[in-house]
């Protein structure tokens, strides 16, 4: 296990944010686009984890990134080099507001609409479901069932365990074994293709 210590101004995100804040509003389009490409996939991951919906995650990504760049353009961030901390706070706030239903996504999108290029934002690839099915079928029954019950609706170990008469710890052990085998099998299939 390793960790990384960097001064915010030493990170690429921090440098880009400082450039955007220093330029006339919208004056450094290249830095804006680069910051968007860098941070947008990370915000989408946050949305996938906390909203459990790809479309909602995509909306979150657009809202938070537009809000961030708007704030940088307006010089409204005291420490633009700490842009990642701002983005994290914006993610948390936006998701909480969605949970509470206090603000509709259309309002946010309209409020922070921007003309930042987003076409080349990284998207995680989808797997061939036939290949996944073949690999699942190779697993022992118990591991396969635990993976189906866990991932069909993204359920935690405690919920899956309750439905199978197993402890959460036991489910995690079975799940860990099963997904490790599934990952290796799918990878092997991709390399062979």
């Amino acid at each position: 296990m390793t960790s990384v210590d960097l001064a915010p101004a030493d990170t690429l995100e921090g440098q880009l944010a400082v450039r955007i804040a220093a330029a006339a509003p919208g004056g450094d389009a290249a830095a804006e686009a680069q910051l968007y490409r860098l941070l947008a996939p990370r915000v989408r991951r946050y949305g996938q984890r906390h909203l459990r919906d790809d479309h909602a995650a995509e909306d979150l990504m657009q809202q938070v990134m537009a809000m961030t760049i708007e704030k940088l353009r307006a010089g409204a961030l005291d420490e633009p080099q700490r842009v990642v901390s701002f983005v994290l706070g914006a993610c948390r706030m936006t998701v909480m507001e969605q949970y509470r239903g206090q603000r509709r996504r259309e309002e946010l999108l309209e409020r922070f609409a921007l003309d930042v290029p987003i076409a080349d934002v990284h998207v995680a690839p989808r797997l061939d479901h036939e290949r996944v099915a073949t690999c699942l079928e190779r697993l022992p029954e118990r591991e396969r069932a635990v993976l189906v019950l866990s991932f069909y609706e993204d359920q935690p170990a405690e919920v899956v365990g309750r439905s199978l008469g197993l402890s959460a710890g036991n489910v995690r052990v079975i799940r860990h074994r099963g997904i490790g085998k599934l990952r290796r099998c799918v990878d092997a299939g991709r390399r062979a293709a």
Partner: protein
Amino acid sequence: MTRTAPHPDWQALVDYWLGDTDAAATEAIDEHLLRCDDCGAVFDEIVALARGVRDAFSRGLVPSALTPDLVARVKASGRRVREYAVPPGGSVHCAVAPDDELLVSRMRAPLAGVRRLDALFSFSFAPGEAQRLQDLPFDPEAGELLLAHKLAEVRRLPSHDVTLRLLSVDDAGEREIARYTFHHRAGTPPA
């Protein structure tokens, strides 16, 4: 200085995705993923695997033991589920419709005290052969076993009979606890 949390390992990211991390660990990983693209790529891989499992199961490609709760939720989501329930020693006539999305057999069985459960399938079109599913997960208190079948495979089969024996396995050996017969008819089931 910006100190990022240590890189979470694969298992920690799986736990994070499935909601098995506590609030502090979840926040730490949230923050780490906003700073670390290497871990983000691993996270993407987990999300892709999760989607792959979901897609494969949704398309009826994965035979699996299921729970009544999951089947109920699949039905509630609007998916077309065909179920055949059968008591111990019982039989049922069955078929699959073209628009069925999940085929489930529900076998009521005396599961209390069973340590390991195996299922032995015999098909009338392959006399002398049997297919064995070992160590099926089950809830002893539920009193039934639910199995999802591969739809595409079942659709290709001719009319036939399937005998399913449930076996309790322990140190003393194995014993049959219930037997069922499925009379499968090729073609569309009656409405």
